[in-house]
């Protein structure tokens, strides 16, 4: 019985280890490059949150301290995914990252990933491969 038990445990462990490797392979390469963000390979196609991290990291270095900023995926309007602003919140400790509300006091800057943000109250500030930064028109 003890041998059967050992065979079951080690056999299942081996299969689960192979399944783990298979899962990694399914997520795709590159396999031996240190990723840019902690979200880089969680799905075969990159999540928008990955782009938010990269864009927010860049924005954190060029936007003024204490500026109000939000992050959105414009194609989701008007029901913006709030996780984008939360993601930016964690990356931009020196700015004031706020929820994506455009019917109240407007954020000074908008980080838009995946598509343009065609809002007449904002003008383009700068662009990166991950998205664009818009500045409110005073």
């Amino acid at each position, binding site marked *: 019985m003890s041998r059967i038990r050992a065979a079951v445990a080690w056999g299942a462990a081996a299969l689960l280890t192979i399944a*783990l490797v298979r899962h990694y392979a399914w997520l795709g390469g590159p396999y031996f490059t240190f990723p840019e963000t902690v979200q880089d390979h969680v799905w075969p196609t990159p999540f928008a949150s990955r782009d938010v991290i990269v864009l927010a990291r860049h924005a954190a270095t060029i936007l003024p301290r204490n500026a109000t900023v939000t992050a959105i995926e414009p194609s989701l309007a008007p029901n913006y995914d709030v996780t984008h602003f939360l993601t930016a919140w964690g990356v931009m400790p020196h700015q004031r990252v706020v929820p994506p509300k455009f019917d109240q006091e407007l954020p000074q800057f908008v980080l838009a990933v995946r598509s343009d943000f065609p809002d007449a109250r904002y003008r383009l500030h700068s662009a990166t491969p991950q998205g664009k930064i818009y500045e409110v028109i005073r």
Partner: protein
Amino acid sequence: MIAFAAYLALPLFGLAILRLTGVRTLDLAARLALAGAAGVLSVSAVLSVLSVLSIPWSRTSVFVPLAAIAIAGFLLRKKALNPPRVGGLAAIAVIAVLFAYGLFTARITSGDLHFFWGPKSILFYQSDGVTIAALQSLSNKYMNPDYPLLLPLVYAWSQIVARQFSWWAALAASGLFLFASVMIVRSASRDAHAAVLMAAALGYAVAKSYSSGAAEPLLLLFEIITLCALVFIEDERTQTILAALGLIGAAATKIEGATFSTAVVLAILIVRRDWKLAIRIGAPAAVVIAGWMAFVRGYEISLLYTAGTMPMFFSAIPIALTELTRTAGYGVWGLPWIAAIALIVTGDTRRAAALPIVVSILTIGAAIFFYIHMPDPRVWIAGSGPRVLLTPLCALLIAAAASHRIASPDAAR
């Protein structure tokens, strides 16, 4: 590196646990893991007390009490009692390396790390403590404001040491917590076979459920400590203290920890019919849960603790059962569960396995109870089910380890 060193230093603040007789019989890796878990509680307690006293977090205000705790623990600790050698270490190391590969190539990260666990800890760090203003801030309203604070406090500890939040170190900490759990099971059960299975099953399920960086690895650590204490530790004092600390940790980590604590207390009553033990082990966690609930309700930041009062939809039971069964497959036809059950069936004793089996069943039942508070919980289960099921899976794997009587300390070599 400094941010990660902060996590590695956690055992320093839990050295006092090495005084317990039942802990002294475990091997070095398990003793370090238990000291680390106790260190998590010590660090969190210090940060919480400073916040309650309105003393801002700083290296001085945090390091001084923690240094005192470390020195006291060092003086209180006792030498190991010739712990037995258990095999399986090389296989566990291989699985751990593979898991680390997933962590450091960003393949198994939880979205929640960036959505609220990380931001919440940064919020507290920037506020120099867990302040009412921070908890009631607009940003925190989006960060699951009534989630228990243990993980953000641990992440804040790393920031206090490194003066910045490291996302990679937070991920690495998840790996530490997970494999610390495995080392506790390995040494406490002395069953190398079950320990290797647990490493592979939890490594795979945690990766597949994208739990790294979220609270699940820490939750599992405390849950495993509780169950291992109750199932494998013979010294009564050690068993009570470890199980109680495990429940406190679980309850302070996630709302699911409160469910787990309830399940453990009920399992003790059902299986052992020992209400004194149930009270001794469950009461401290009950105080933590009740205190936190009163706090979040008092400051009107409670969202989830009132979910149980929402209407139930019994028509959702078939949907919940079907969807949970599908989710429990983890893409490998339920292999982790099947393997654990096979070990229980082929074991030579099932008495000790009864308690974790009951915990597993009760926590599955609790999951179904919560899921039927929505008329169609499919999306909810698809999103949270793989993580919620880690607790009952973990309990079943411990039952598998408990179903084999080790004849001598060297039997599992």
